[in-house]
């Protein structure tokens, strides 16, 4: 809301600067967006004050309301809105039927008005300063009263009304064309104003097209009603809009000013468009009016929570100023909430009022005492640290991805879809971190970064059986290009599958989890250069080269390698205790076997381990060779074995026997021969 500063003068004699007014309002919780000074031809020096009012302070949605707040802050007298009552010249023949959602409805007919007149200059100026478009004198005056008092008014074309007024719930599937020409489909939780033939307004939100004031209007029926916040809340939003009226009604309008608003509007209407005024018609359901809430305040508790020492005299002064009528003993006060404050319900609300008027800045400040808390190490931090030391950069991508990306990389059969996405390419919740990594990689590649190591830690989403989406935390990474930056001492090498595998092993090494690799793959990977990572039989990750079908489309020169691990499957290590190491010498033997190409190194080393005896404590694969000297369809795998016993020095003859056993087993089980 914005308004002219000079408008405040109608209600309060303020001598402070606009700057000071804004600062006072800000520090009282009525946020000020700013102010602009200018010279008004009518009122002289003036400023436009722009407010950003929080949902709890509906009472400040009017010039009068802001003046009321300033009066309390400055301890000044608030002048009540003045008006000259316009005498009626005829009896109202319209009957008004209200309901419990609309317990007050005040109406007045004005006949033979002259709509060719102009809105009064001061009214016009103030509306313009409040950023209100001028429409016609009648609508302008209703807008003026709304801004001044916070009471929304509506004017119907009296001649288009067919019979008595009824405020009622909408019927199932009832339609209404609003002032702005949009047709809405109503449901029974919406309140409408109707005559005997048709609905004529969406109560508290917007009038209907069928009865609106036009250039030809001769007579009007002015509505000033009180609608309960609960019947207005969310209704306008449901149809995708908000109005000045709905904003006020859903926050709560003072239920004691409906007649005042009609009187005040009548006075200005009389001066502007003239006409004959009917008797003010009022329909009320007293029982349904908001209850005056009684709230008690334990001053000791308030002081404890605020850390203050506010005396009961001071507290009473503040609360009286706010119109809360404090009563009771010195330490315990009983208060009633004023008709314009809907945010005063419990003691905490009163504590806030005390704090506000005392000034948040002048409330005491004490340091919180630290407490000892035994830290638990974050898995994400540990993973991040080890990847960063390997030259990886962390990225953070949106959790939203496009349908295409989700279809290619999605690991979840049922995708999690956003009902109201910000754009079509952000319509799904990612079930894989790969699309984001690839997009980031392409962005940086296009910017000249030829070698990249990226990782992301984040949630991935999917649907299992239930409707509720499931989430998992995952680490995924991407490597591309040179294994390390070019260096004068090194021979350049491109990254490969084993670099990615090494990263997986490095991550896993800081956790208590055993993994094994299986050549089973996903469609988006190269079928021969990819693997699934298992812990026992549970799938916990993936790695591989991006499928040439995809990398070809992306125009990539080299293979991209991707990897991922489910962080939840990585169990934190328990405290590592010291284990004794052997002080006896170790014995080393190097063996090279020629085996079929299809035999994996894992098969060979697993067999050797099983036959190598309990003292075999290290196995290093140091060469794999195919080509000259090795038959076609065969390969040579060279392995270095180390034995060491904790009980004594091992004899060469014992090792010879073990080696013989290994060689025999390799021959028997893998048809492999010792290479000469």
């Amino acid at each position, binding site marked *: 809301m914005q308004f002219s500063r000079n408008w405040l003068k109608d209600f309060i004699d303020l001598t402070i600067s606009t700057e000071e007014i804004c600062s006072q309002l800000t520090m*009282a919780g009525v946020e000020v967006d700013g102010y602009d000074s200018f010279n008004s031809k009518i009122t002289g020096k003036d400023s436009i004050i722009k407010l950003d009012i929080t949902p709890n302070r509906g009472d400040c949605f009017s010039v009068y309301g802001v003046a009321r707040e300033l009066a309390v802050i400055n301890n000044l007298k608030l002048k009540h809105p003045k008006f000259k009552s316009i005498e009626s010249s005829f009896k109202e023949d319209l009957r008004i039927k209200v309901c419990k959602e609309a317990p007050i409805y005040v109406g007045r007919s004005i006949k033979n008005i002259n709509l060719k007149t102009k809105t009064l200059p001061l009214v016009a100026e103030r509306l313009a300063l409040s950023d209100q478009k001028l429409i016609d004198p009648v609508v302008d005056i209703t807008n003026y009263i709304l801004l001044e008092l916070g009471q929304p008014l509506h004017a119907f074309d009296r001649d288009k009304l067919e019979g008595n007024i009824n405020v009622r719930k909408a019927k199932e599937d009832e339609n209404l064309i609003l002032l702005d020409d949009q047709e809405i489909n109503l449901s029974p939780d919406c309140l409408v104003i109707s005559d005997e033939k048709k609905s004529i307004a969406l109560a508290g939100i917007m009038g209907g097209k069928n009865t609106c004031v036009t250039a030809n209007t001769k007579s009007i029926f002015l509505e000033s009603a009180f609608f309960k916040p609960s019947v207005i809340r969310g209704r306008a939003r449901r149809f995708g809009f908000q109005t000045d009226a709905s904003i006020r009604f859903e926050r709560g309008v003072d239920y004691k000013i409906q007649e005042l608003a009609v009187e005040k509007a009548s006075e200005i209407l009389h001066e502007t468009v003239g006409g004959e005024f009917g008797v003010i018609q009022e329909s009320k359901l007293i029982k349904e009016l908001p209850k005056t809430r009684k709230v008690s305040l334990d001053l000791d508790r308030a002081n404890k929570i605020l850390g203050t020492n506010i005396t009961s005299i001071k507290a009473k002064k503040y609360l009286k100023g706010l119109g809360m009528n404090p009563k009771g003993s010195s330490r315990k006060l009983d208060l009633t909430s004023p008709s314009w404050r809907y945010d005063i319900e419990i003691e905490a609300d009163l*504590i806030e009022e005390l704090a506000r008027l005392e000034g948040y800045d002048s409330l005491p400040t004490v340091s919180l005492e630290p407490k000892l808390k035994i830290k638990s190490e974050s898995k994400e931090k540990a993973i991040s640290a080890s990847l960063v030391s390997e030259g990886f*950069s962390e990225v953070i991508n*949106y959790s*939203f991805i496009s349908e295409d990306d989700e279809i290619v990389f999605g690991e979840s059969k049922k995708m999690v879809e956003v009902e*109201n996405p910000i754009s079509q390419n952000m319509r799904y919740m990612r079930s894989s971190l790969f699309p984001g990594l690839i997009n980031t990689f392409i962005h940086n590649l296009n910017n000249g970064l030829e070698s990249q*190591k990226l990782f992301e830690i984040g949630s991935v989403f999917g649907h299992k059986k239930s409707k*509720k989406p499931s*989430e998992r935390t995952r680490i995924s990474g991407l490597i591309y290009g040179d294994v390390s930056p070019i260096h004068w001492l090194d021979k350049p090498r491109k990254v490969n599958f084993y670099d990615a595998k090494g990263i997986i092993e490095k991550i896993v090494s800081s956790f208590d989890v055993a993994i094994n690799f299986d050549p089973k793959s996903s469609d988006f990977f190269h079928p021969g250069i990819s693997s699934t990572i298992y812990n026992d039989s549970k799938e916990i990750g993936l790695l591989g080269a991006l499928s040439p079908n995809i990398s070809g489309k992306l125009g990539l020169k080299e293979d991209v390698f991707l990897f991922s691990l489910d962080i939840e499957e990585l169990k934190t290590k328990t405290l590592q205790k010291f284990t004794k190491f052997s002080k006896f010498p170790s014995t080393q033997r190097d063996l090279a076997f020629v085996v079929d190409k299809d035999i994996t190194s894992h098969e060979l080393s697993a067999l050797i381990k099983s036959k190598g005896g309990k003292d075999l404590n290290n196995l290093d694969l140091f060469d794999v060779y195919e080509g000259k000297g090795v038959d076609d369809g065969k390969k040579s795998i060279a392995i270095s074995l180390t034995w060491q016993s904790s009980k004594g020095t091992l004899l060469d003859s014992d090792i010879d026997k073990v080696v013989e056993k290994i060689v025999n087993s390799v021959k028997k089980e893998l048809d492999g021969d010792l290479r000469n």
Partner: protein
Amino acid sequence: MDLKSLKQKISTLKSESSALINSSNDKGSLEKTYKSYLGKSGEVNLLLKSLGSLPQEKRKEAGMLLNQLKSDIDNSYKDKTSELSKAENELRLGNQKIDISLPSTSRTDGSVHPVTQTINEISDFFESMGFGIESGPETETDYYNFEALNVPEDHPAKDMHDTFYLKESGLLRTHTSPVQIRTMENKNPPHRIICPGKVFRKDSDLTHTPMFHQIEGLVVEEGASFAQLKGLLNDFLEDFFGREVELRFRPSYFPFTEPSAEADIKWDKSWLEVLGCGMVHPNVLEMVGVDAKKYSGFAFGLGVERMAMLKYDIPDLRLFFENDYRFLKQF
């Protein structure tokens, strides 16, 4: 030869040999010189052989003099040898000089995303104060995101959050406050926790991205006060920015706190909003079954990107999610 002429000869040999030895430039000529005096047919040996021609009583003295000469030459020879070795060694090492300005083999580290770094910096402070770090799901229910936080259906306060809803059910959390609710449901007070994480709001322009990071904190203890909240946030902001900050609290509105406040810091002469906070609303405590008569609480929340932008002078929020290496490498 008489003793007198022998003595003269010894004196000549001494000065002559010393000069020759000292003027040797390499081990070869030194060796040659040495041998010309002390070798088998060297001058000193020749003199020793001629001792017999001296009278008996003079031989002893002459022998001593000659031995003295021998040891003098020997010493000069040894000194010169070590001098030459040293020079040779220096020359050899001197030739082994490398270009120490060539690039080292140290591998450059990667980088932690500035959002993660900022979360870590903030978490470190709160952990040192005894706060635990809690996390929760990013897909939430209306109950945890709104209802349990005292935001009823259709309440205008919901407009403060432009919520993303999921097609099947639920929504994307608009703040990390649901983690506070889940923590209070699962554990008994007292509580000191912070909840960092991603949050989602349907908003996208220069100053808003549809996803960003938040850290919210919660303290529920006997005697938790607004004065402590002010003190804690002041200490935190000074720790975070590494300097004294001018901080101001002003009333605001959040459905889950009462009193509610917004904290602004003085930045280039104007006030800048950095934190929302307040005393936990009694309705919230009641809903999770915390005895509001015994315990009071306060909570606060901040936007991680915003804090990082202030601290590191980052001009555009969207840089965080572009992941351009020229941006990431700076952190």
